[in-house]
């Protein structure tokens, strides 16, 4: 997995490429934990994300809870396979997917 980070004022964009699974999810978790205090908009660009497992979903859930307090979280470029996972787990109802 690879994460590209773009900070733009109060917006933080993380482009996640590859697999978000048991081994790589902690990396994204750490990236989100170290988010600047001023960030009130977190954008997760998933256009290069190929696979997500429950470990990845848990990180998204924690991030969503955190951003509910601080501002908003948006997912972009979600592919069909990943969308399928969001749908069967009910995450498509919790997350803001553009």
């Amino acid at each position: 997995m690879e994460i590209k980070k773009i900070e733009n004022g109060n917006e933080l964009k993380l482009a996640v490429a590859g697999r978000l699974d048991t081994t790589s999810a902690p990396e994204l978790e750490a990236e989100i934990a170290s988010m600047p205090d001023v960030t009130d908009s977190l954008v997760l660009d998933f256009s290069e994300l190929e696979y997500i497992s429950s470990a990845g979903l848990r990180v998204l859930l924690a991030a969503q809870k955190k951003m509910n307090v601080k501002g908003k979280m948006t997912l972009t470029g979600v592919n069909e396979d990943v969308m399928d996972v969001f749908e069967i787990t009910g995450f498509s109802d919790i997350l803001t997917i553009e």
Partner: protein
Amino acid sequence: MISIRHLRKEYEEATPLLDVNAEIEKGEVISVIGPSGTGKSTLLRCINALESPTSGQILIDGEDITDKNCKKHLLRRKMGMVFQSFNLFAHLNVIENVMKAPVDLLGKSRQEAYDRGMELLRTVGLADKATAFPDELSGGQKQRVAIARTLATDPEIVLFDEPTSALDPTMVGEVLAVIKSLAKEGLTMMIVTHEMKFARDVSTRVFYMDEGEIYEDGTPEQVFDHPVREKTRQFIRRLKVFEESITSHGFDFLAVNTRLEEFGRRHLVPQKTVRCAETVFEELCVQTLLPLSDGEPDIRMTLEYSEENESADMRISYGGRSFASLGEADPLSAALIGNSATEIAFRETGSAEYPHEITLKLK
């Protein structure tokens, strides 16, 4: 372009080629498949005149290369060969490797060889590595340079002998992609390969070799979907089995996924099924069973794929505490497992080594 007639090759210990016959036309892309030891490499080496046949004829553009009077070196120029091992010159950089044959053998000017060489490096996606030395490159990059070097003599046909067999699985894709793009450009090629998905996608024709001959010859659809002869059937439809064991909490998860994807590619397992296998392996073996095992884990996963009925069955055997229904799993993991399988069954085996077993039919 190439006619092979009653080709026979005997060695002291073995006779890999008994009676090989084939007509190969310009623009054909032929995959040569078959069990090991059936003479695939021997056939390529005979065509390239690296080996003299015991009897029979090989005509290239009408000239018989088995004829003593034939100018082998001239004919060999019409052909290029790419081997499993890349054999680059270690003391020359990438572009010098590619320029060597055109300058030394074909008498091209250095400028001409350089321009063509750079063009070829662009084709294989390595123009930015022109001045790198071979030991600075990955295996996949080396093989792409070897392909560019072979193309530099402008061969009319290129023979590949298992071009990806010596590569790390993560690098197979990039080399196959280069070969595929050459096929699109209309280059005549013969490729010995074990990559069945690739063979199906890229070839205009498939030779299945066995019993000392081209045992079955046809389009990829004919050979892969409707093989006529018994041995071809067995080879194509044989059950494909993938096995992995988790024996430590810190096992290499990434490596297992890479092997699983490699297995899927080799045996034409649909991408969706591979995804389901990855999901079940991660959610059930790694997320659910692994934390249940105190001490040294021992979880064995077997995936059986049958091409004949396109079904994939997974069996997971393990020791330690039992896990007897999806309801005991984390809800997220349970949802993902449920979405990947059409059937799931839990069973006690009675064996001391692996007392518990879970079987799944994957989607």
